[in-house]
C-alpha cells in the first residue's frame, strides 16, 4: 500500500516538501481547498516537482459548504451539483470534470458521488447514480483508468455483512478500473469506536481487492493502517482532521486553527498535545518517547528531541506536527509491506501490542494523549482484523503475491 496525500487547506508547500523528501508523492487534489486558477498554477508546480495528481470533484454534499467548489464549472450555481438531473447535464459535468483532470494531468479519473443518507432505498439510489456517472464517463474518459467513488454513509457501514452483501455484488459489476472509497465517520469522530464500522470498511475493501480491482481509500488516518493487510493500493491522509476522516460537514479551518498542536508518537499510535510533551520533558519522560526506529525521527520531530528546552519552546509548530504525522504514517505503511499476508498480519498485531504497552507505560508516568489516545481503539482494531482474517484471511494469503 502507498500513502497518498489528501490535499487540504494550506497543503501546497507541504506537498512539495514531502515529495522532495520522499522522492515523489501522489496527491488527491481538493477543489474545496483551491480555486480553479490555483489549480492551473499549482498543477504545474506539482508536475515539475514529480507529484502525481488525482482530482476528487468532491460532489459528496450538494447542499453543503462550497465556497470554493461553486467556482468550478461542473458545480451548479443553484447550490446543487446537478448529479440527480438529466443525463445531458451529467454528461456535461463529466466533461467539465475531465477538463480539470486534464489541467491537473491526473493519473486516473475519480468520478463524482453523492453521499446520500442511509435509508431503505439507499442501495438502489447509490447504484443507479454510480452507473449513470460511469456510463457518462465511458464516452469521454477513455485515456486513463477510471475510479468510481464509493461514498458510504456512516449508517450503512454499521449494518450487518448480510446487508452489505447485495450492494457489494452490485459494486463488483461496475465497469471501472478501481474504486475511491470514502467512509463517512461515525458521529463526526476522528477515530471510530465501533468495530462494525471498521470491520465493514475492511470487508468491502478486501472484497474489491481480491476481485482484482484497484482500491484507493480516501480521508484515512492511522486507524486505517490495517488496509495494508488487504493490500489496498493507497490510503490518502493529510493535515487537518477534515482530511484524515470524512464527515458530511466541512470543518471550518478557522475553527481548527484555534485548537492545539498534536504530536504523533507512532509507537503508541497516539497524538500528544505539546503541553503534555512539556510535562513529559519536565519529568524526564520525553526521551523515552523518542522512537528507536530512526525513520520515525524526521527533521520536524528532531526539533523537539534534539533540544534542551521544553517542546513548546523549540519552535515546533502545526506544520511540523503535520509533516511529522505524515512521515510517520508513510513509514508505518512501508513497514506493513510484507512478502506474505501472514507476516503483514503479525506485524500489525505487533504494532497494536506495542501501542497498547506504550500508552500504558506513558499513562503510568502521567503522560496522557487525552482525546487522541489510541487506548480505546486498540480493541476496535483487533476485533476488526480478527473479522478480516476470518472473512478473507485465506483468500488474502492465496492472492497476496498477485495483488
Amino acid at each position: 500500500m502507498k500513502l497518498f496525500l489528501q490535499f487540504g487547506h494550506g497543503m501546497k508547500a507541504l506537498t512539495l516538501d514531502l515529495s522532495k523528501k520522499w522522492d515523489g508523492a501522489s496527491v488527491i487534489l481538493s477543489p474545496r481547498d483551491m480555486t480553479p486558477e490555483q489549480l492551473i498554477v499549482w498543477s504545474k508546480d506539482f508536475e515539475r516537482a514529480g507529484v502525481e495528481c488525482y482530482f476528487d470533484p468532491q460532489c459528496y454534499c450538494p447542499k453543503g459548504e462550497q465556497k470554493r467548489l461553486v467556482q468550478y464549472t461542473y458545480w451548479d450555481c443553484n447550490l446543487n451539483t446537478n448529479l440527480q438531473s438529466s443525463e445531458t447535464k451529467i454528461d456535461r459535468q463529466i466533461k467539465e470534470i475531465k477538463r480539470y483532470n486534464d489541467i491537473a494531468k491526473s493519473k486516473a479519473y475519480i468520478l463524482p458521488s453523492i453521499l446520500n443518507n442511509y435509508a431503505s432505498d439507499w442501495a438502489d439510489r447509490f447504484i443507479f447514480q454510480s452507473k449513470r456517472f460511469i456510463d457518462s464517463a465511458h464516452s469521454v474518459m477513455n485515456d486513463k483508468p477510471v475510479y468510481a467513488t464509493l461514498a458510504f454513509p456512516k449508517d450503512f457501514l454499521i449494518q450487518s455483512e448480510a446487508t452489505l452483501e447485495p450492494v457489494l455484488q452490485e459494486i463488483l459489476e461496475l465497469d471501472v478500473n478501481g474504486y475511491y472509497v470514502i467512509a463517512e465517520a461515525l458521529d463526526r469522530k476522528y477515530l471510530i469506536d465501533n468495530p462494525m464500522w471498521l470491520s465493514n470498511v475492511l470487508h468491502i475493501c478486501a472484497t474489491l481487492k481480491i476481485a482484482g480491482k484497484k482500491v484507493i481509500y480516501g480521508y484515512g488516518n492511522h486507524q486505517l493502517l490495517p488496509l495494508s493487510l488487504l493490500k489496498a493500493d493507497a490510503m490518502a491522509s493529510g493535515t487537518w482532521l477534515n482530511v484524515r476522516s470524512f464527515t458530511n460537514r466541512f470543518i471550518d479551518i478557522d475553527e481548527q486553527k484555534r485548537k492545539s498542536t498534536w504530536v504523533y508518537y507512532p509507537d503508541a499510535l497516539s497524538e500528544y498535545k505539546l503541553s503534555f510533551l512539556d510535562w513529559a520533558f519536565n519529568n524526564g519522560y520525553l526521551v523515552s518517547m523518542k522512537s528507536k526506529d530512526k525513520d520515525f525521527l524526521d527533521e520536524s520531530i528532531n526539533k523537539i528531541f534534539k533540544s534542551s528546552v521544553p517542546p513548546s519552546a523549540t519552535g515546533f509548530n502545526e506544520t511540523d506536527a503535520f509533516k511529522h504525522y505524515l512521515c510517520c504514517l508513510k513509514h508505518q505503511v512501508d513497514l506493513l509491506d510484507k512478502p506474505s499476508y501472514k507476516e503483514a498480519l503479525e506485524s500489525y498485531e505487533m504494532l497494536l501490542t506495542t501501542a497498547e504497552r506504550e500508552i500504558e507505560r506513558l499513562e503510568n508516568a502521567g503522560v496522557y494523549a487525552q482525546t487522541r489516545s489510541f487506548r480505546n481503539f486498540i480493541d476496535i482494531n483487533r476485533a476488526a482484523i480478527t473479522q478480516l482474517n476470518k472473512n478473507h484471511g485465506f483468500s488474502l494469503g492465496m492472492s497476496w503475491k498477485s495483488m
Partner: protein
Amino acid sequence: MIAELTKKYPSLRVIKAYPESGQKWVYLVSIDTYGVVMLKIIKRMDERIRREIDIVNQNDIPGVPKIKEISSFQHEGEEHYYLFEEYIEGETLTDVLKRGPLDLPQSLKLFESLLIVVAKLESLGIVHRDIKPDNIICAKDGSYHLIDFGIARNLNLTSLTLTVAAVGPHTPGYGAPELFQYNKAKINSKADLFSVGVVVYQAIFGRHPFITGKEADLNEIWYRTATVMPKDDLIPGDTDSQLIGLIQTLMQKQVSKRPPSAEKALEWYYTVLGTLSL
C-alpha cells in the same frame, strides 16, 4: 416405446431400466454403434430440457458424460426426443459415502475434478446449481463425473425461473444461500463453488458440514445453510490448515467471501496441494 426404437436400432438391447423420473425414461442399453450407453427418452421436450441437452452437447466439459446422438421418433402421434449418452460405470458418491468417507487422495481427486468442471462451466457462463453426491458418479477407474444439468442455468440466456419466485431451483443443504435468499437472479459460478465445498467436506469427514439430519423442516435446513459454519476440523496431512481453509472459503455464506472465480479456486487448489503432506 422401446419397441419403436428397436425398429430403428435393431442391435439395441436394454440392460437395465432405471426408475421413471418426472421428465425422462432412462435405460442402460447396448447398441452396436456405441457399445454400452445410457438411453434417455424425453417424455415432453420443453425449453429447460432443451437447454440441459444443449449445455452438454454443445460444450466439451471435462468429467461430464458426452452425448453421442440426439434424435426423435413418432409414438402414438407424438414426437419423442431421445439421446444416447456415454455410460460411466460406477456408482453415485451418495452410495460410496454410505460405506464411509473417502481417503485423502480420493477426496483430492474429487475436489480437483469438481473444480475443473466448475471452472469450465464458468468460462461458458453456466451454473450447474445442483452439485451434490447424488449427481456425482464415481467411476470404476477412480475418476469423478458430474451429471444432471436439469436445473443448470445458462447465464447468457433468459432465466426460466419465474422472476417472482422467491426461491431459485436448488437442493437444500447443497445449494448456496444466495439461491434461496436475496439475489437468486444474480447467481454465478460462486454458487457452484459453495456446493463443491459442501460435497468435498462431506467426502473427507463423512458427514455434512451443517445439516445434522434432525432438521424439522426445509426452513431449518435453509437457516442452518445460511448461518452455521463448520468447525475448522483437522485433516491429516493438512499441517498448515490450507486445505480446510480452502474448503471453508468455498462454503462461506456470503458470495463476497468466496474465491473471486472458479478459475481462481482451482489455482488456489493447486497451491494448497503443494502444502499437504501426503
